[in-house]
């Protein structure tokens, strides 16, 4: 099946097998930030944006990306660096393996939720597992980043 997909602003036309998942397809186009951390759709490491919504690229078939716009961390360098600095400052990046998927979901959350409560933040990020941090530092980083974004908007 031939699909046409926009990845980080660039359009690709490719022949894909019906059982290829989006994750492997994206990696074949050099998007190495997209990683597989589990076999059970549970870890969130493979998060990318499809049509602006965060999805698990390990679970979506590449054929379903036909005609869609996909964004990976490679396409959001500026935002990722900005939030990444908060994450590093708070010690929310230890081994760093979970970071790309986590950052992608945080960036999706910032777009979708207005002034989220702690509870809403936790619910939104619940599907991103991290073996190292215990989540407290990640939570601090997210809240400081949200504050920063809000102040920036008010300027």
């Amino acid at each position, binding site marked *: 099946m031939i699909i046409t997909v926009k990845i980080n602003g660039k359009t690709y036309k490719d022949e894909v097998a*019906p059982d290829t*998942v989006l994750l492997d397809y994206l990696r074949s186009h050099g998007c190495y930030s997209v990683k597989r951390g589990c076999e059970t*759709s549970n870890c969130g490491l493979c998060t990318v944006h499809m049509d602006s*919504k965060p999805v*698990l690229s390990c679970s979506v078939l590449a054929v379903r990306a036909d005609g869609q716009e996909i964004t990976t961390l490679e396409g959001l360098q500026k935002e990722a660096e900005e939030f990444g600095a908060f994450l590093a400052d708070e010690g929310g990046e230890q081994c760093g393996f979970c970071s790309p998927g986590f950052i992608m979901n945080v960036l999706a959350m910032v777009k979708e939720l207005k002034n989220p409560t702690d509870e809403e933040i936790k*619910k939104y990020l619940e599907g991103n597992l991290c073996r190292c941090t215990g989540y407290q530092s990640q939570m601090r980083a997210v809240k400081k980043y949200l504050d920063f974004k809000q102040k920036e908007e008010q300027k």
Partner: protein
Amino acid sequence: MFKAQNYAKVTSLTEALELNKKRTNKVLGGGCWMKMGKKNINTLIDLSGLGLDKITETDDEIIIGSLVTLRDIETSPVIEKNFGNFFKDAFTHIVGVQFRNCATIGGSVFSRFGFSDIVTSLIVLDTKIELAGGETVSMEEYSERDYDNDIVVNIHIKKGGRKAAYESFRNTQTDIPVLNCSLAYDGKKLYAAVGARPMRGKVSTMDCPDVENSEEVFKFFEKIQAETEFGTNTRASKEYRKHLSLVLLKRVYKKLVCKEGDAK
């Protein structure tokens, strides 16, 4: 991960039905469950060209296309207007936002898992499942059926009749539930379902002119607890589930009858 040889994005339900007659062909929902299996599939039948990704409101019902995702339902203003937080409460613990942006209502209804939060929520509302070929069955009846090669097209939920609340209990936040429970009221009758027992939810009803009469309602709950079958699996024992059922029923009742703010 499953293997698939061919892919067919069908242009009609007739075409999908024809392809689905073959046992080795499979309808594709969000693919989240299928990916966990190792099936050898001949042709994947994709319904995504049929416009089944929409939630529509008519005068008397809400129609949810089979490819609508769990997250779409959770965030839909139409669903919120008609059912409040009911579906949010039911779906919010299912894995994570990204997962729920992929998993579909059609795949969930067809799968009718014993642990399903989707079945336990739909079943206490007046819900009908529309299958390809024209047949329409109640959620209750569909959930009891043996698996066959039917195709779920739309989910129809009657509007205005029932107010409902949902509770589940999990060992850890995003795990599948140890037990789940829903309760609906239409002014005359209470409809209760306890699911993930680990078997599917079944509906018990009670004539109930006065929903605030908790003594009568609790007797009904105790009867459900006594008469319902519970089972043991890796997540919990049947004794634990039985005990928990009454706790959850009382919690969900509080949620249903208490006005915002006085739910203590």
